C-alpha cells in the first residue's frame, strides 16, 4: 500500500471568488423559487431566466477554478462558513461549503453541461405549455446538485442529496398528465410516467436509509458529521478523526457499506439499479442532465469524497469494486438487448457508472481516474442523450430503434455529434473514452489496489470484457439509428433539429473529442494526467499504481482488439447493407429475452420485496385490527360491562342505597374487629 499524505486535513478560509461560492447555489435556487412563485406570469420569459442562472453559476465556477489554479496545490482546500444550521444538544452543526478541486470539478461539470442542456431545452420544450415549470425544476436540480457537491458535512450533503432526489422525481414524472399539444402524452403514458417517478423515489429512499445510518454511526462514534474542522478552530472533522485512527476497521467498514448502499441507490448500482431504466420516462434533457451526466454520478462522488473512510476499510472498498464490476457487466448485457434508444443509453450509463465505482473501489489509485472518467462520461453521454432527443424530435417522439435507420443522411449534424460520443464511449484511440476508460481497465489490472493476488485478474478481465460489450451495444445503437435502410413509420419526415439544439450537441461532441487527450491519463505513462493532478489535494495526494499484472500495451491493444471485434460483429448484424433489422423484435435467445427484461431484476424485486411487503402490510393491518384495536375495544367493552354491573344497583330507591351503606358499615367494622383480634 502506498503511504498516504493527508493534505486534505487542512482547509483554509475562502478568499476571493471562492468566498462567493454560496452564490453558485443561490443563483439557480433563487431562479427556481422565482419561476415557481411567479407562476404563469413568468411563462413568457421564464426559460431565459432559467438558462441565465446556471450560466451565471458556471461563470462564477470558472472564476473560482482560475483562482484555485493560481494558488499552491496544498492551499486549494477552501472553506466557506454559512452559519449555524443545526444546534441540537450535542449536535452543533454549522453549514458550510467546501471549495476544493473535487467540488469545483463537479461544479464546472454541473454548470457547464447543465447550461448546455438548459439551452437545448429551450428549443426541445418550446411547444410544451409547462416549459417555465420545467426550467424551475431544472434550476432546482442544479441548485440541489451544487449543494450536494459543495457541502462540507454529510448532513448538508444529504440535504442536497434529497434535493436532487426531489428534482429527479419531479422531472421523471414531468409528463404525468394528459397533454395533447407539443409533446403528446396519452393517459396511459402519464400513468406510466408517474409510476416511474415513484419507483425512482422509492428506490432512492432505500439508499437514503444507508446514508442516514452512516451519519448516525459517524455521529455516535465521532460526535460530528462535518468533513473537516473549520479553519481557525480546533474542531476536528470526520476525515481528520478517521485519519487519526479514531474508528475501528470494523466500524469504518460498516459505515463504508452504508455509504455504498446510499451510492447504489443514487447511482443505480446493483442491486438498486432497477429505477434508472424507467426514469427515461422524463423529458430527454432530464435524462441527459440528471440520469446521465450528473445526479447518478453522485454516488461516485460520495465514495470518492469519503475516501479517508474507505482507505481505512479495505473490505468495504472491495465491496464497492465488486458492486461496480457487477453493475458494469449487468448494464452492458441489458444494453445489448434494449430497442428503446433511451433505455439502451440508460443501461450504458449504468454500466459506465459501474466502471467509475470499480475505479473508486480500487482505492487511492482509482479515485482520481474515477472522477476523470465521470467527467468525460458526463460529456459524451450527455451529448448522446441530446442526440437521442434530437432523433426523437425528428421522429415524432419515437424511441424504438427498430423504426429508425438511415438517419445519417437526413440529420448530418446529429449524426456527427452522436458519432463523436459513440467513438468516445467505445474507447476509439485518441478520443475521451480511450484515455478515461482504459485507465480504469489498466488500474483494475494493477496489483497494488488489492490484497489478494487473484483479484486484479478477475476485475481486470471484467473491465476488459465490459469494454468489448460497450463497443457492441453502443455500435448496435448507433448503427440501428443512423445506418442501414430506413425503417420509418409512414408519415415520418426526419429533419435536422433547430440550432439551439444542435449547438449544445456540438460543444459536447467537442468535449468528447478533446477532454480525454487534454485532461486524461496516457496509457503509457504513470502520470495521472492534468485532471488527476488537479484532484490530488482532494483525494489524498498522488498515487501511482504499481505496474499492472499485464504490461500496458497488452491491456491497451487487447482492449482495442476486443473493441474492434465487437464493432465488426455489430456492423455485420446491424450496420451493413446486408444486415436485416426486423421492425418488430424477433423472439431472441434466452439471454436476449432476459436482457430485454432487465435480467428480471424487477421480477426479483417484486417477488422478494413487493409481495412479502404486501403480505407483511396485510398482516400488520390485521394485527392492528385484531390485536391493537382489539385490546382497545376489549378495554372499552369491559368498561361498558362493569358499567352495566354498576348500573344494576342504581334503582333510585334511597332505602336500597341506605341498606348498602349499612351493610358496608357492618363489613367495615367486622374487618376492623378482625384485624384487632
Amino acid at each position: 500500500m502506498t503511504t498516504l499524505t493527508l493534505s486534505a486535513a487542512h482547509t483554509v478560509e475562502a478568499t476571493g471568488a471562492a468566498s462567493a461560492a454560496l452564490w453558485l447555489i443561490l443563483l439557480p435556487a433563487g431562479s427556481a423559487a422565482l419561476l415557481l412563485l411567479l407562476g404563469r406570469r413568468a411563462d413568457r420569459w421564464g426559460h431565459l431566466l432559467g438558462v441565465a442562472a446556471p450560466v451565471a453559476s458556471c461563470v462564477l465556477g470558472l472564476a473560482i477554478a482560475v483562482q484555485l489554479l493560481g494558488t499552491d496545490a496544498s492551499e486549494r482546500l477552501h472553506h466557506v462558513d454559512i452559519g449555524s444550521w443545526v444546534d441540537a444538544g450535542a449536535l452543533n452543526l454549522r453549514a458550510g461549503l467546501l471549495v476544493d478541486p473535487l467540488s469545483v470539478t463537479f461544479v464546472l461539470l454541473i454548470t457547464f453541461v447543465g447550461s448546455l442542456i438548459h439551452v437545448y431545452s429551450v428549443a426541445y420544450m418550446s411547444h410544451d405549455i409547462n416549459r417555465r415549470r420545467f426550467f424551475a425544476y431544472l434550476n432546482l436540480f442544479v441548485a440541489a446538485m451544487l449543494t450536494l457537491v459543495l457541502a462540507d458535512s454529510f448532513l448538508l450533503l444529504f440535504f442536497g442529496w434529497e434535493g436532487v432526489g426531489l428534482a429527479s422525481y419531479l422531472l421523471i414524472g414531468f409528463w404525468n398528465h394528459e397533454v395533447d399539444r407539443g409533446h403528446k402524452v396519452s393517459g396511459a403514458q402519464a400513468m406510466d410516467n408517474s409510476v416511474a417517478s415513484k419507483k425512482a423515489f422509492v428506490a432512492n429512499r432505500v439508499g437514503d436509509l444507508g446514508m442516514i445510518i452512516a451519519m448516525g454511526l459517524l455521529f455516535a462514534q465521532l460526535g460530528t458529521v462535518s468533513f473537516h474542522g473549520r479553519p481557525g478552530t480546533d474542531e476536528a472533522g470526520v476525515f481528520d478523526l478517521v485519519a487519526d485512527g479514531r474508528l475501528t476497521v470494523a466500524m469504518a467498514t460498516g459505515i463504508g457499506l452504508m455509504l455504498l448502499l446510499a451510492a447504489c441507490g443514487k447511482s443505480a448500482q446493483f442491486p438498486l439499479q432497477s429505477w434508472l431504466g424507467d426514469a427515461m420516462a422524463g423529458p430527454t434533457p432530464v435524462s441527459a442532465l440528471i440520469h446521465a451526466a450528473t445526479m447518478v454520478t453522485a454516488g461516485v462522488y460520495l465514495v470518492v469524497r469519503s475516501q479517508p473512510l474507505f482507505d481505512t476499510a479495505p473490505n468495504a472498498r472491495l465491496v464497492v469494486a465488486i458492486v461496480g464490476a457487477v453493475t458494469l457487466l449487468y448494464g452492458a448485457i441489458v444494453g445489448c438487448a434494449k430497442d428503446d434508444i433511451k433505455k439502451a443509453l440508460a443501461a450504458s450509463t449504468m454500466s459506465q457508472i459501474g466502471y467509475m465505482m470499480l475505479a473508486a473501489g480500487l482505492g487511492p489509485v482509482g479515485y482520481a481516474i474515477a472522477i476523470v472518467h465521470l467527467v468525460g462520461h458526463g460529456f459524451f453521454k450527455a451529448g448522446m442523450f441530446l442526440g437521442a432527443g434530437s432523433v426523437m424530435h425528428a421522429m415524432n417522439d419515437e424511441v424504438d430503434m427498430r423504426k429508425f435507420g438511415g438517419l445519417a443522411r437526413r440529420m448530418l449534424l446529429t449524426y456527427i455529434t452522436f458519432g463523436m460520443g459513440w467513438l468516445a464511449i467505445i474507447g476509439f484511440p485518441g478520443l475521451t473514452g480511450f484515455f478515461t476508460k482504459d485507465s480504469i481497465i489498466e488500474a483494475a489490472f494493477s496489483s497494488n489496489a488489492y490484497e489478494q493476488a487473484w483479484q486484479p485478474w478477475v476485475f481486470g478481465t471484467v473491465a476488459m470484457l465490459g469494454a468489448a460489450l460497450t463497443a457492441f451495444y453502443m455500435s448496435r445503437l448507433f448503427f440501428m439509428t443512423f445506418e442501414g435502410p430506413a425503417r420509418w413509420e409512414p408519415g415520418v419526415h426526419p429533419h435536422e433539429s433547430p440550432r439551439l439544439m444542435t449547438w449544445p450537441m456540438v460543444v459536447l461532441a467537442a468535449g468528447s473529442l478533446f477532454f480525454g487527450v487534454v485532461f486524461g491519463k496516457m496509457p503509457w505513462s504513470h502520470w495521472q494526467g492534468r485532471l488527476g493532478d488537479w484532484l490530488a489535494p482532494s483525494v489524498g495526494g498522488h498515487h501511482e499504481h504499481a505496474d499492472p499484472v499485464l504490461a500496458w500495451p497488452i491491456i491497451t491493444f487487447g482492449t482495442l482488439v476486443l473493441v474492434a471485434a465487437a464493432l465488426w460483429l455489430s456492423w455485420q448484424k446491424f450496420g451493413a447493407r446486408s444486415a436485416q433489422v426486423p421492425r418488430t423484435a424477433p423472439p431472441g435467445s434466452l439471454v436476449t429475452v432476459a436482457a430485454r427484461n432487465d435480467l428480471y431484476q424487477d421480477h426479483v424485486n417484486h417477488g422478494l420485496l413487493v409481495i412479502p411487503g404486501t403480505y407483511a402490510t396485510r398482516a400488520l393491518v390485521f394485527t392492528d385490527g385484531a390485536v391493537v384495536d382489539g385490546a382497545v375495544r376489549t378495554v372499552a367493552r369491559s368498561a361498558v360491562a362493569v358499567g352495566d354491573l354498576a348500573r344494576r344497583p342504581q334503582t333510585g330507591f334511597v332505602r336500597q342505597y341506605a341498606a348498602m351503606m349499612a351493610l358496608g358499615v357492618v363489613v367495615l367494622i367486622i374487618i376492623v374487629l378482625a384485624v384487632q383480634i
Partner: protein
Amino acid sequence: MSLMNYLVLSTVLFSVGATTVLVRRNAIIAFMGIEMMLNATNLALVTFARINGNLHGQVLAFFVMVVAAAEVVVGLAIIVAIYRTRRSASIDDVNLLKDVRDPA
C-alpha cells in the same frame, strides 16, 4: 351497675333507628329513625364523658343536638316541598336517581 349498660342501650337504639330508616317508606318516619340514631349516639357521648371524667363528650352531644335541629329544619322543608309537588311522602316515589334504560 356498669356504665357499659348505657352503651349497650345506645347500640340497641341505634340499630333500631337504622332499621327504621331501611324499612319504613314514609319519609317522616324514616327521618325520625335518623333522629333516633342521633339520640343514641348522644347517649353514648354522654356516657363517654362520664367515663373519661371531662365534659367534651357532653359538648359534642350538645353540638349534635344543634346540628340535628338545623338538619331537621332543612329535611322537613324538603319533605314538604316534595309533598307539595308529588302529593306523596313516600321516599320510594322519589326515585328519579336511577338508570332510565332499565327501570328495575
